[in-house]
């Protein structure tokens, strides 16, 4: 296991930046599913971004592309699978090329689970959430927007997949 908190602290300290205080909570909310997964509708939540060709290279193996960042929660149809990219995120570019979106956006696998009867349904639209260093912005702006999107999609469950 990589100690990410320790790694990033040392990394950014070396680059001349103060340590970042990662979120830490003692109490954890817990909601029990009201029905079996096979009867539930699930919303997929991703940190990936819609591809916008005018913003430079966002393809597999692209260097970090800050231009491709977004700052508002969005939704997008899962049919067909939308063209989302992760060039704006700090994934492991040395050991992962991002060539297969299914490794960070399991839309195809979720559709299979629905077809096989393991999952009741997949929400028509996935939900994209921006990554923000400000925990306050995430909690006060983006989390309520994500909740509203889940409600709009009549989702019983949410699957969150970071990149």
């Amino acid at each position: 296991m990589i100690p990410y908190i320790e790694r990033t602290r040392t990394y950014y300290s070396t680059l001349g930046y103060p340590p970042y205080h990662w979120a830490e909570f003692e109490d954890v909310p817990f909601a029990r599913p009201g029905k079996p997964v096979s009867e539930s509708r699930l919303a997929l939540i991703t940190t990936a971004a819609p591809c916008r060709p005018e913003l430079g290279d966002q393809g597999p193996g692209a260097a970090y592309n800050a231009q491709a960042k977004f700052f508002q929660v969005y939704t997008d149809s899962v049919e067909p699978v939308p063209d989302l990219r992760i060039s704006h995120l700090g994934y492991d570019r040395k050991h992962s090329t991002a060539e297969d979106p299914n490794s960070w956006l399991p839309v195809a696998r979720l559709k299979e689970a629905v077809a096989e009867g393991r999952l009741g349904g997949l929400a028509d639209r996935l939900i994209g959430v921006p990554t923000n260093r400000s925990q306050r912005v995430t909690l006060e702006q983006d989390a309520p927007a994500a909740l509203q999107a889940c409600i709009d999609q009549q989702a019983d469950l949410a699957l969150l997949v970071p990149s």
Partner: protein
Amino acid sequence: MCHQTVSLIARYLEAHGIPTVIMGCARDIVEQAGVPRFVWSDFPLGNSAGKPNDRDSQRQTLALALDLFETAELPRTTCTSPQVWSDDDSWKFDFMNVDALPPERIEQLKREFAEQKATAARIKSGG
């Protein structure tokens, strides 16, 4: 930052009655934030849903997540995927490890990071 973002949002959704599962790779960040249900794959960041070009790996990872909705009895339930990224563990040494970088590369990273922050700030301000 991805893993922290989804952790905060999962906590918010749970507090408002929507059960969640996070599939991810950065275990310490997610567990420090404190989430109800987490499927951890000890893979490089960018592979939270399974190995690339490996349908079986992706199906197994999703199966763990769907199962966890039904099996978790308490918050902070972490399910560790039994999958192994590679027989070679050297990838764990490389990521954001300044010990693996020569001084000239660190100087280059300082310049690049400052540019990235400026770009993000410009986009955010609408400039």
